[in-house]
């Protein structure tokens, strides 16, 4: 089965390519890339006129939660993948915070197998750093890595004990395993539910101070330096945390930063009248901090932008703000959040795509995420300026707790291919 897509605007953040061209796909891989205004490839059995739409690598998302196994009423690997491909995400890493926790080889294999059987996107399991995410006993990092767990993390339960963290990092480094950790000093952030400050005080909600993130990041970065561990600092929400990371990088440490897409779009004021869909951790910060993160994205200081997809059903969100669960569904809106920065904040298109394509691919050592001959044909056709109204009920995730509900967004995926097969088409979307 071969397919030629012509009359496209080719976008490859890995090489800086942005020009008209065509792509020839054969046996699930990119067989040929033709620049300029050429017609369909002569060997193609099937041809597609892109009509001038952007053709880019599919998105790679480092941080997705589903409810499988254990909370399938929230989301399954299959429903998450449906939502993902509608948002242009063709590869994603699932977090180990499930029931049971992915802290064992059998669970890693289960996720790989279940994804292969049911999902439309490529799904990569992560493994827990500690048994049960309890932060006490080291999980079988080596065995899980051998079973192809791609990254190791304690998910939403960062390891409180610095000694455990140091040993886990040292061990992971010896297995050449990539570690990801939420920088969060829980003693400071413990009871908080939104960004700390004047707004939280006025509406009577307890705050999550940025110091909790800075102290958590400083600790993890120092331990990574001490142990030689490759570390991904998960969901940075302030510029100062990026400075902590940059300083360590300057000393040669292998530290990377991710930012959640919604953090680039919303600020604390969006919490407004206690909107629980805007309850996320790390919380939306103030506007100045949001602008700082956008500036850092422009300076290419953010390695990956993640959806931080965290499906929560109504019973977890239709509660008073303080009692509601953290988390936002985000797989379907990540690209649009980034396109809003392209359209409204002067972010160059390729700089918006790099942290969701080639850079996370490089972090994980994946061959996709680039327009390259021989790479998997995980591709999206999209219109970067197409306006649309985000309506919760129309999202494809099983839980539709999206802070974007009711927002006008820009940028829409028209077609998504995984391994050369079309797995989503906008026109056929229902």
């Amino acid at each position, binding site marked *: 089965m071969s397919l030629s897509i012509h009359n496209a605007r080719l976008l490859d953040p890995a090489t800086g390519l942005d020009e008209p061209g065509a792509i020839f796909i054969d046996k699930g891989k990119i067989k040929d890339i033709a620049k300029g205004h050429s017609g369909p490839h002569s060997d193609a059995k099937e041809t597609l006129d892109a009509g001038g739409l952007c053709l880019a690598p599919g998105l790679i998302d480092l941080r997705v939660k589903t409810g499988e196994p254990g909370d399938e009423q929230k989301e399954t690997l299959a429903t998450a993948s449906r939502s993902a491909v509608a948002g242009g995400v063709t590869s994603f890493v699932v977090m180990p915070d499930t029931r049971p926790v992915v802290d064992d080889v059998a669970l890693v294999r289960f996720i790989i197998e279940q994804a292969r059987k049911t999902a439309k996107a490529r799904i990569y399991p992560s493994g827990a750093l500690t048994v049960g995410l309890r932060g006490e006993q080291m999980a079988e990092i080596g065995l899980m890595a051998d079973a192809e767990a791609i990254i190791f993390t304690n998910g939403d339960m960062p390891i409180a004990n610095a000694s455990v963290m140091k040993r886990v990092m040292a061990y992971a480094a010896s297995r050449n395993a990539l570690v990801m950790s939420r920088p969060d000093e829980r003693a400071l952030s413990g009871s908080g539910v939104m960004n700390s400050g*004047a707004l939280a*005080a*006025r509406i*009577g*909600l307890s705050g999550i101070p940025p110091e909790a993130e800075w102290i958590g990041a400083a600790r993890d970065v120092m331990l990574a330096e001490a142990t030689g561990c490759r570390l991904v600092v998960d969901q940075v929400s302030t510029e100062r945390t990026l400075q902590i990371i940059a300083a360590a990088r300057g000393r040669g440490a292998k530290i990377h930063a991710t930012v959640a897409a919604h953090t680039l779009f919303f600020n604390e004021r969006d919490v407004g009248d*206690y909107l629980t869909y805007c309850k996320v951790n790390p919380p939306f910060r103030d506007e100045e901090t949001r602008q700082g993160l956008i500036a850092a994205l422009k300076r290419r200081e953010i390695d990956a932008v993640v959806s931080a997809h965290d499906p929560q059903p109504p019973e977890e969100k*239709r509660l*008073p*703000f*303080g009692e509601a669960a953290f988390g936002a569904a985000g797989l379907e809106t990540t690209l649009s959040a980034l396109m809003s920065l392209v359209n409204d904040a002067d972010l160059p298109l390729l700089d918006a795509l790099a942290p969701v394509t080639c850079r996370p691919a490089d972090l994980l050592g994946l061959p996709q995420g680039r327009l390259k001959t021989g790479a998997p044909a995980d591709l999206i056709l999209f219109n970067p300026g197409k306006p649309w109204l985000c309506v919760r009920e129309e999202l494809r995730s099983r839980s539709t707790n999206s802070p974007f509900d009711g927002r006008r967004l820009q940028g829409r995926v028209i077609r998504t291919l995984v391994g050369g097969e079309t797995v989503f088409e906008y026109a056929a979307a229902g």
Partner: protein
Amino acid sequence: MPMAGYTYSFDHAHLLGIEGLHPLDITHILDLADRYADATRAGQRADPVLTGRTVVNLFFENSTRTMSSFEIAAKRLGADVINMPVANSSVKKGETLIDTAMTLNAMKPDVLVIRHSASGGAKLLSRKVDCAVINAGDGTHEHPTQGLLDVLTIRRNKGRVEGLKVVICGDIAHSRVARSTTMALHLLGAEVHLCGPKTLLPPGTDTWGAASATTDFDAALKGADVVMMLRLQMERMDGAFLPSRREYFRYFGLTQERLALALPDATVMHPGPMNRGIEIESAIADGPRSVITEQVEMGVAVREAVLDLLAGTHR
């Protein structure tokens, strides 16, 4: 209330907070409450403007004082009152606030008075029901009828609100009374100074309308017309907000000597219940400048006025 060129009408569906009210709204509520207070003092029966109306007191936190005040106010106006102290009912069995609200809503009450431990609880309820909702305290957010009764008490004692210097002292951070009372006083032109230990003074109190926030109680008291003391929750000693009761009383307790720093006719207030000897000396609480029991009296009058405005049959 007719004014030059236009007529005023109270057009709020709920009373969820002082935030969102116009000074005219507040003045209107206070004027009506004044009349109810005077009538009660004169031994007159109020017009039964809530006859046939059902008021449900939905209290997720126990508060005998506030619930009784709403109950008396509603009954004086002829309403049928159902008290639901939910703190020990089905909500404990996992039913959510919204489920409870929808169940009650199906029984078609006219007013829901809600107290809830979560900030925003009353707002959430108001989105899900068809009747008027009165916030009787939501977490550490607002307690609007308390704010109104405080302002009414001040206005009756001082004859005005505008230009008065009011000092509110105590656990500002966790006090919904501090928020509502500060906002209401500010809207009517008073100058509000907040005072408390640094660990209990939140940021951004200027956005509530406070003129200052300080840890120096003595300095704040100079020239004050009104001093309002807040209840100190004993659990603040846990978690290192405060060292001890003794130290708190030393710096933030209202004593006779300290009260002498305020104006000679300064009025002393407390939303109750009091910790005598911790935030306030008994001699002051029971002394001639204390209007603490009058606050309780005005509480009923303000609640009559609010119930009348939101659900009165004549409107």
